[in-house]
């Protein structure tokens, strides 16, 4: 069986058994069933209940053993001590069982129970996911484990050791414009680990970018070999939890992570061309960058910043410098072209290009297109970052300056032969009206393959992840 065939039942299950849904109250299992239905899941949902005939209006079975036919995926949310027997009862029937319960290897005396759980899964011929996790999200398979997840599927595949953070990744990620091919929370990863899922996602044609949140690994050698073999052919971003000694203690009690050397994770990142990031937002921004932009054949290290705001241009230049970019100088021809635009006093046409909002509205905002064209034609940079102070821009109500700038960027990209990356920073003041505009612009830009960030520093970080992947591939 190929990797793809092996994991199809997990991401496209035809039958889902739910162990731990109540006939009288609303437990985790009940919420899972409700979320599945809300999400439009069309397969069979089979509740398992020791006594009730019906759960959530669905016919219930006494045991996994009583379910007619195969179960692709079993959602198990029962107390830890009975979980091994639940798995045993599904012998030769259940392909994947995800055990949400905690109280296993992450606790002081749960190690034996975890070993028993793994043994039970092996006896039953079931692949175990977890324990101590939350579920699987597969928009194409209409499977989810939480509310308000988008049904629209995308290209980003996630392996997340933490359940709760998995929800953050989906929810905050989709607000930022990420679209997922799938997400699996693996908790203690007692059986199915990150390496195998990465192998699957590397083969899965719908996944273009992979994100990993890990706190530790029990299969470091295999993970290293899989990633090394992959040679960054699909970009992979790593968010590693527990990289400080105090964080490591927290990780040990969260997912039972081993106390490994953080140097090893840094080495793993460098040896496999996998950007290693520190925060959830850096993770999401890096994934968004790689979702939108296709890595170039050489490292994108020269950037042009263009926007309104002098102080922001200076801070942005600092952020890009720190992130390892060169804010490239224009050649004399490009400078002459930009000067010929006769921008008003206060504008600066050197890089960073700082043009006040008032000047950008000239000619219905067409001046932006001329600037972007000149930058593209100059060939001095592989990255153009357009940043907009929305508070100021939206003050000019008679003209859709923001829309014009985005349109200009997209038009220039159509004809640009240099393949320059274009990114957009929409700087908001948090005002409801501004946020609303920002949301709409963000969706439009991202659908057109332009990543959108909240600040220049975030853009610098996200784009530096892209640069790392490019630099790694360029040296293969």
């Amino acid at each position, binding site marked *: 069986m190929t990797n793809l065939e092996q994991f199809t039942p997990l991401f496209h299950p035809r039958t889902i058994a739910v162990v731990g849904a109540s006939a009288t109250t609303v437990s985790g299992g009940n919420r899972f069933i409700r979320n599945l239905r809300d999400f439009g899941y069309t397969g069979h949902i089979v509740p398992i209940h020791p006594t009730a005939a019906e759960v959530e209006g669905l016919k219930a079975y006494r045991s996994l053993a009583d379910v007619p036919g195969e179960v692709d995926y079993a959602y198990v949310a029962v107390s830890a001590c009975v979980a091994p027997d639940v798995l045993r009862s599904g012998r030769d029937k259940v392909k994947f069982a995800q055990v949400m319960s905690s109280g296993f290897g992450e606790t002081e005396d749960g190690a034996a129970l975890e070993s028993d759980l793994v043994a039970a899964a092996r006896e039953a011929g079931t692949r175990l996911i977890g324990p101590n996790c939350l579920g699987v999200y597969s928009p194409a398979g209409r499977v989810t484990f939480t509310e308000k997840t988008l049904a629209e599927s995308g290209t980003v595949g996630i392996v997340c050791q933490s359940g709760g953070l998995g929800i953050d990744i989906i929810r905050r990620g989709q607000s930022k414009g990420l679209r997922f091919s799938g997400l699996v929370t693996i908790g203690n990863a007692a059986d199915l680990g990150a390496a195998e899922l990465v192998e699957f996602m590397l083969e899965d044609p719908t996944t273009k970018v992979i994100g990993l949140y890990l706190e*530790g690994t*029990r299969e*470091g*050698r295999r993970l290293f070999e899989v990633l090394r073999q992959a040679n960054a052919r699909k970009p992979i971003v790593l968010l590693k939890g527990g990289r400080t000694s105090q964080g490591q203690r927290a990780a040990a009690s969260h997912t039972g992570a*081993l106390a*490994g*050397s953080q*140097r*090893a994770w840094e080495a*793993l990142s460098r040896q496999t061309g996998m950007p290693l990031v520190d925060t959830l937002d850096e993770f999401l921004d890096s994934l968004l960058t790689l979702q939108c932009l296709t890595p170039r054949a050489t490292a994108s290290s020269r950037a042009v910043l263009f926007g309104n705001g002098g102080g922001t241009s200076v801070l942005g230049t600092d952020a890009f410098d720190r992130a390892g970019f060169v804010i490239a100088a224009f050649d004399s021809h490009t400078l002459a072209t930009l000067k010929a635009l006769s921008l008003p006093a206060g504008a600066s046409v050197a890089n960073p290009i700082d043009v006040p909002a008032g000047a950008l509205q000239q000619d219905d905002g067409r001046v932006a297109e001329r600037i972007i064209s000149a930058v593209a034609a100059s060939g001095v940079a592989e990255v153009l970052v357009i940043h907009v102070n929305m508070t100021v821009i939206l003050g000019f109500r008679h003209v859709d300056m923001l829309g014009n700038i985005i349109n200009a960027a997209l038009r220039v990209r159509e004809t640009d032969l240099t393949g320059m990356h274009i990114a957009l920073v929409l700087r908001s003041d948090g005002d409801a009206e501004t946020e609303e505009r920002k949301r709409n612009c963000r969706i439009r830009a991202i659908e057109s393959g332009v990543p959108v960030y909240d600040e220049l520093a975030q853009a610098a970080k996200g784009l530096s992840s892209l640069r790392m992947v490019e630099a790694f591939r360029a040296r293969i």
Partner: protein
Amino acid sequence: MHEQVALALRAARESGQHALDEPTGKKILHAVGICVPRSVVIEAGMDAHAALVGLKPPLALKVVATSVIHKSEVGGVKLNLRNGADVISAIADLTQSLQARDIKAEAWLIEEMAPQGVEVVVGGTLDPEFGPMVMVGIGGVFVEVLKDIAFRICPITERDARDMLDELKGASLLHGARGSEPVNIEAIVEVLLCVGGDGGLLMSSNDEISEIDINPLIVSRQSAVAVDARFILKETGAKA
């Protein structure tokens, strides 16, 4: 595993040691292709004169004692000895000063001193998650105070080895900073591959070696010489 390495590890284990003595460690390094100083080992109480024939001064004298891991910390090393008479009087001095610390020399290692150069540290460890790892740093304050060290998971490629050196903040010292000569980068890369490469010491020792510390590896324009080597074996729990 290299036969000589396997034999040395087995012998150490059978005699209940958790570390290899320096002459054995250096034999292993030599066997896998790492330069070590030309040397002789004489048993305690034996005459040094005859043994020294063929060694080119200046010489270094080091105590060999199973109980001693850090020789210089217990004053078990004398450097820059010019001839046999120097060596014999140094042995007498050290015997006495070590006795005061209750250390009994089992043997003496007498080595040619390596040509001057930059002191580099090359090490190997077993990471609980990823297994064998190799490290490199520049000796002295760079490693000890600034923790300017680069690590890689084994097996490393030649590219990894070069990246490790480039990653060091003190890399310019290797390229000839402050008017000094650039050192032999190729020789360091070679040592890193012998320790951490495919088929290198760490990958072929079946995780029996829990720690290797080549400190210093003295790198000059010509060569990289392992001047001291410490091998710690993995605790098996079983005592021989």
